Structure formats: C-alpha cells, structure tokens
C-alpha cells in the first residue's frame, strides 16, 4: 500500500476518523488500533513477512528488558550481542547474502577456482533496513543506560511498526517516539492543517516531480550508449530531482500523516540541495540515517577524537557502510566512497562545520559565494548519483565517459518542457520555504485565505493533471 494510492487514502480516512472519535478517550485503545492498522498496512505488501517483523519486535522488546534487568555487565552484553547478531543476521540473509556469495565466487574465480554458490531466491522484506535499525538503536540505548526499556509491548511494537515510518523511515529513536506514544494526544487544528499541507507537498514531490522524471531517467540510463552527453547530463540531473522528490516526498507524507495523528516524527530532509558544502549536505540529507550512523557507529569508533588518521578512517567507514546500507551492490559502496572523498578536504581543513545555519538567512537571494558553494555541492552530489543509479560499476563509468564527450554541448533529446516548469515551481517553493520544515510550511501563512487556498488548489490541480505512473518508492528497496 503506497501513500499515493486510493487504497491508502481510504485506509487513512478510516483510521483518522476512528482515532479522533471512537478511541480518542483511551490512549491504550488508540495505540492498539494504530498497531493493528500498522500491521494491516505491512501485510498489504506481503503478510508472510509480518511474522518476521513481529519476531524482530519481540526479540528487541525482550532483549531490552533483559539488558535492563540483568545486573552483570557480562549478562547485559550477552543480550545485546544476541539482539544485534539476530537482527543483523536477518538483514544479512535477506539483503546481503547473494551479494557476498557472488563476490566470493568472483574472488576465488580470479585464482582459477570454480565456486558454485547457492543463491537465495527470496524477496527483500520491505522496510527491513528501517525497522532493524529501530530495534538496534533501542537495545543499544538501553545497554548504555540512555533510556529505560518500555514495559508495554504495544508501545514498543508501535515504535517499531508505526505505519507512517514502517517501510521507509524516518529512522526514529525510542527516546523521541516512545514518550509521545505514552502521552495522551490532543486534537490540534494547527497541527492538522500543517500535516495536511505537508502531505500535499510530499505528494507533489512524489507524483509530479519524481514519477514524471522516472521514465525519462530509466530510458536514458537503460540506453545510455544511444544518447548525447547533454542528454546523459539531463538524465542524471533529473535523477537528482527524482530521488529527492521520491524520498523526501515520502518522508513529507509520513511526517504529515503522523502529525495528523498527533505524533511528531524526526525531520528527515532539510533542503539538502541548498547546501553550501558536502558536510552541510549530509546534515540535511536523510538526517535520521546520518545521525543514526553518527551515534551508533562513528562515535563508538572514536569519532573525530584522536589523530588525523583516525578521523579519516572513521569518516571512510561511516560513508562506506552508509553506502552499503542502501543496497548489496558495489555501486552503492562506490557512491559512499565518493562522498567520503568529497568530505575529506573539509574534514582535514577543519571546515566541515562552517555552514550550520540556513543559507541566505534573512535574505531573499544568496550571495555569489553561497550560490557558488551550492552549485559546486549540487554538481558533486549529482555526479555521485551516477554510481547510485547505475546497475554496476562498468555502467557507471561508461555513463560518465558518455557524458564527458563533445556532445555535452548540444540540446538534450529527451527534454520534457512542462516538467521543467514544474521543476522551476518546485525549486522556487523549496527556496522560499527553506526556513520551515518543508517547502510549503511557511509560504502563504500570512496571505488572505483566497490566495492561500488558491495556491493549494493549484498544487492539487497540477498533481491530478500531471501525476506520473505510480512508481514504487525508491527507498522501499532499501
């Protein structure tokens, strides 16, 4: 069940109504209903994997309690290791087994040995990378006494399985979400309006920008040898917009839907394409994943403490692991490695925290320097997307070679004029709204109702006039 479908619309309408009417007086009932709805939401994709989700939830719930109750450090460590091993074991089997088996066969093939690995023919359970990370952060936080375990299995199961975030994040933290699940929620008109606006903007990004860019991107990447350098450039530029529209659009819808249920989720995107350097980009792109890796990998590895070598090593580890998290393919590892390389000069010069605020704060337009910074960052990020999108490394390099040809100075052959106008509108709204949580949040807040509603009607019209073919959300596969 995708957020941009009639099925979800009807599902959410029913949940919203029951939540704020029938169950509003009982927090317990609200949570039980949300959990049942979340499991139904997941089962709509494949009910068989619901058991895996429930098992993973039960494992971390009991591990959390055991870690808390066990008095010895050794005992605590046992439960933590057990939980991590099983969680990562599932992730490894479903997501990475075939990759390792194939890589091993290739590796031994270089020595003249013939390996015949057994490949698993299983689909990747939707959202496994996300809910595994929920569970891991929970048990690790309990182990380090950052939080206390919840005794209520419904609250914990809802923390892992809450339907807006279940299949593509944001990756929540127990310390942020569980207290909200344990507090009575009040219906708040401003919160509802804000949630609706965020859903509307997310839908625009997904249905208009991402889904219309997708067929062009697919065609260009599939037949790259037939296209000019300029068309290849256009293809990867569109992919930059597609992946942002797709993923941040999904996140916006998730946040908006949760807000309409009185629950605030972590912000996952903060206008990353307006970043002035790569370090700022990573503070603004898939924030919940970046901070997860920072807290549970980078800092335990020593973070930026220690010498230069330690810093460089830890930076590479975090970027490579982050790349690998996205998928079992060398392209993702290359993508992560490339970002580590881009990050390195900033780290070594100590300027990785130079841009902490919003670009062009209190100004309408950026300075020339800010603009140049954004342009360079966007170019680097876009180049790296070639690796992310390519089917293998050979494909990525041949795409880049094709792009860097004399035909780069020509008019792209797959150009779609109306999409350009949609992108212009999209960028303008995002720029004007960059001080808020999402593009549309602050725009028109002080306008007369007629104008404000006119803007929303216009966006609705564009969505229903131009929505692209319902592509699966890219991040579902991670």
């Amino acid at each position, binding site marked *: 069940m995708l957020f941009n*479908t*009639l*099925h979800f619309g009807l599902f959410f309408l029913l949940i919203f109504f029951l939540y*704020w009417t029938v169950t509003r007086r009982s927090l317990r009932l609200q949570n039980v209903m949300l959990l049942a709805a979340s499991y139904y939401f997941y089962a709509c994709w494949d009910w068989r994997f619901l058991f895996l989700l429930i098992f993973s939830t039960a494992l971390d719930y009991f591990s959390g309690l055991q870690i808390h109750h066990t008095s010895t450090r050794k005992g605590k460590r046992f439960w933590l290791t057990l939980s991590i091993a099983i969680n990562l074991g599932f992730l490894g089997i479903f997501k990475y087994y075939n990759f390792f088996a194939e890589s091993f066969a290739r590796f031994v093939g270089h020595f003249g040995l013939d390996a015949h690995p057994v490949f698993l023919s299983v689909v990747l359970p939707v959202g496994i990378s996300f809910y595994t990370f929920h569970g891991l952060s929970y048990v690790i936080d309990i182990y380090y006494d950052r939080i206390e375990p919840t005794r209520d299995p419904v609250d914990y199961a809802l923390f892992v399985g809450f339907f807006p975030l279940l299949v593509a994040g944001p990756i929540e933290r127990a310390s942020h979400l569980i207290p909200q699940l344990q507090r009575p929620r009040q*219906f708040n*008109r401003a919160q*509802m*309006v804000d949630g*609706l606006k965020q859903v509307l903007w997310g839908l625009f990004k997904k249905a208009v920008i991402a889904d219309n860019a997708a067929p062009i991107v697919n065609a260009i990447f599939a037949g790259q040898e037939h296209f000019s350098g300029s068309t290849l450039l256009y293809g990867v530029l569109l992919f930059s917009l597609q992946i942002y529209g797709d993923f941040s659009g999904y996140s916006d819808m998730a946040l908006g839907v949760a807000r309409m249920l009185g629950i605030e989720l972590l912000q996952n995107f903060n206008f990353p394409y307006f970043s002035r350097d790569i370090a700022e980009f990573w503070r603004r792109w898939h924030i919940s994943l970046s901070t997860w890796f920072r807290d549970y990998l980078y800092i335990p590895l020593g973070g930026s403490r220690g010498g230069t070598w330690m810093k460089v090593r830890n930076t590479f580890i975090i970027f490579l692991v982050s790349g690998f998290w996205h998928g079992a393919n060398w392209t993702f590892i290359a993508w992560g490695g490339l970002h580590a390389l881009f990050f390195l000069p900033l780290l070594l010069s100590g300027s990785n925290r130079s841009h902490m605020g919003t670009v062009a704060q209190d100004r309408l337009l950026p300075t020339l320097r800010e603009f140049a910074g954004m342009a360079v960052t966007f170019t680097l990020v876009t180049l790296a997307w070639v690796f992310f999108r390519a089917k293998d490394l050979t494909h990525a390099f041949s795409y880049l070679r094709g792009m860097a040809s004399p035909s780069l100075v020509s008019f792209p052959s797959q150009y779609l004029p109306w999409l350009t106008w949609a992108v212009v509108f999209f960028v303008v709204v995002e720029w004007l709204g960059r001080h808020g949580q999402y593009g549309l949040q602050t725009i028109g807040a002080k306008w007369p109702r007629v104008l404000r*509603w006119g803007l*929303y*009607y216009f966006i*609705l*019209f564009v969505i*229903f*006039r*131009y*929505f692209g073919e319902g592509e699966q959300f890219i991040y579902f596969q991670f």
Partner: protein
Amino acid sequence: MRAFLKTFALFMVLPLAVFIYTLYQADGRSDPYYLRFTTPRQSSLIVGDSRSAQGIHPQVLDSVLHAGGWQGKSFNYSFALFKSNFGRAYYESIQKKLDPGSRNGVFVVSVDPWNISRNKKLTDEVDAEREQERSFVAKMHFVNLYPNVEYLVRDYPYPFLTLLSPARGQRIEGTRLHEDGWLEVNVDLTAEKVAKRVEGKTRFYLDNHLTKDTLSVQRVAYLRKTIEMLKQHGTVLLVRLPAHSAIHAIEKRYMPDFNGLMERLAEREGVSYLVIPPDDAKWSFTDGNHMTPATGAKVSRIIGEELVRELRK
C-alpha cells in the same frame, strides 16, 4: 475538531465538484477499457483478448441472432493479452459481469495460442500471482458501476484530470470503445502502412512470444472453468479468429496442435469450436493481429450464423 472539519469540508467543495464533473467526462474515447466496467451485469458475453475486442461486433452479432429468432443483447467483455488471458483473474471478472439470472444467453469465447500461455520463466503459480498483483482486471471490485470511480482513480492509465483535457498523444484518432464493448480502431489502411505494421507485429511475436512463451496448464484449466460457468447460462461457442498469415505461421510454429487441443476441449465440454481460417485475400488487418472494422463485421456475421445453428440444435 468540528471547526477543522468545517474548514476542511469548505476547502474540499471545489476539488470535489471538479472531481465529480471529471468522472462524468470519461467516455469511449478516454481509453480502450473503461466503458466495459460501467454497464450493468450482462446476460450474453464475448470474452477473449484484443483480437475479439476489436474483431467481434456485438451489434452485428445481435442483428444476425435476432434474425435467427434469438432475443437478447450481447456485450464484448474482451480486453487484451496480459489483461484478459484465461486465468483466475479474468474468470472472476467474467463472473462479476455476468447476470446470474441469465438462462438463454449466447457466449463467444475467443481463443488463440497466446491467451492460454505464460512466460516460460515463470511457473503457473508465479504467473497467476503476478497477474493478481498487476492486472486491473484482477483488481477491479466493481465492474458494473457508472461512473466507475474505482477504475478512473486507480487504474486509468493517464493522470485523472486528463479526462478533461487529454495530453498530447493520449488519444488515438479513430479509436473508440462503444457502449456494447466493441473497440473500434480506424487507422490508415494504405498498403504500405499496413505492411509496416504487420512487419512490426510479426517481429514482436517472434521476439516476445514464440520462444519465450509456453502452454499454461493453469490457463487451459481456467478456460475450461470459464466455459463450464458460461454453459450454465446459455449457448457457448469457442472461436478462433483469423490473423494475418505471417502471424498465423508463428502460431503454427509455436503450437502446431492448437486446433486439436481446442477441439478436444470443446468436445469434452460439449460445445462447438469454430475456426475461421486465415486468408489474406479475404480478411484485412490493421496490424496482422487485429482485424479491420469491415473484416470484423464480416467475421461477426459468420459467428452469428454459427450461433444460430447452435441455438437450433
């Protein structure tokens, strides 16, 4: 909460009005399938893929049948290959479209080697599972609803508001789905254009079907089930429609004993099997696979006459 709902309802008045108005703009020019889901349950059906969708005209069929003494109205409930191959999805959809009270109906079941086949790489089970997931025929809960909100919102292949102003290339001039389910396709029939289309279609069948498809036991079983279901409501005629000789040759290579298989199936089910042989001099095609409206009318007449004979048995 009340204030919020009030404002929200007020906001939604305009979009809802546009939405409802747009629903009523969908017609036989909107796409090749929609209207088939908007009529009431039917007592006589033509089922099959795009060959019968374009090739069998209910109006012509009815005129022959009426002259033969049968009173009723037939409806073309054929879709296209991959959408209405015989299988669980199509079987259940026919069940929903069929009037359970129908007793003296006529049913034309159009068969060809492709609508009882599946891709070799898939097992029967995986093939069926995929169809249930992907085909709108499988997903449609309501097939007798006007306007059919379910189809237009979920399965209409273009953005919803293009029902008001179609995008460029969305509508093919001369293509129109009639209310009786017949899909009329008028294209340029100059010899050169037709030859080019026949060549393209032949290449398509060579590349995508000949070596990649195989007979599906499950689809044959569902074809039988479909016939058995329809038999309870009237007279069933199994028909193989003509195709261009180039396409027919591919079919012969692919499944040499197709006619034998259908004859045995028809005999076992106690229905007749009518083969209208290929004859490029007699029949004209838009692309080799689909008959022109004029040929379709002639073929529909032949089917009608055969049905009259069946009804008199």
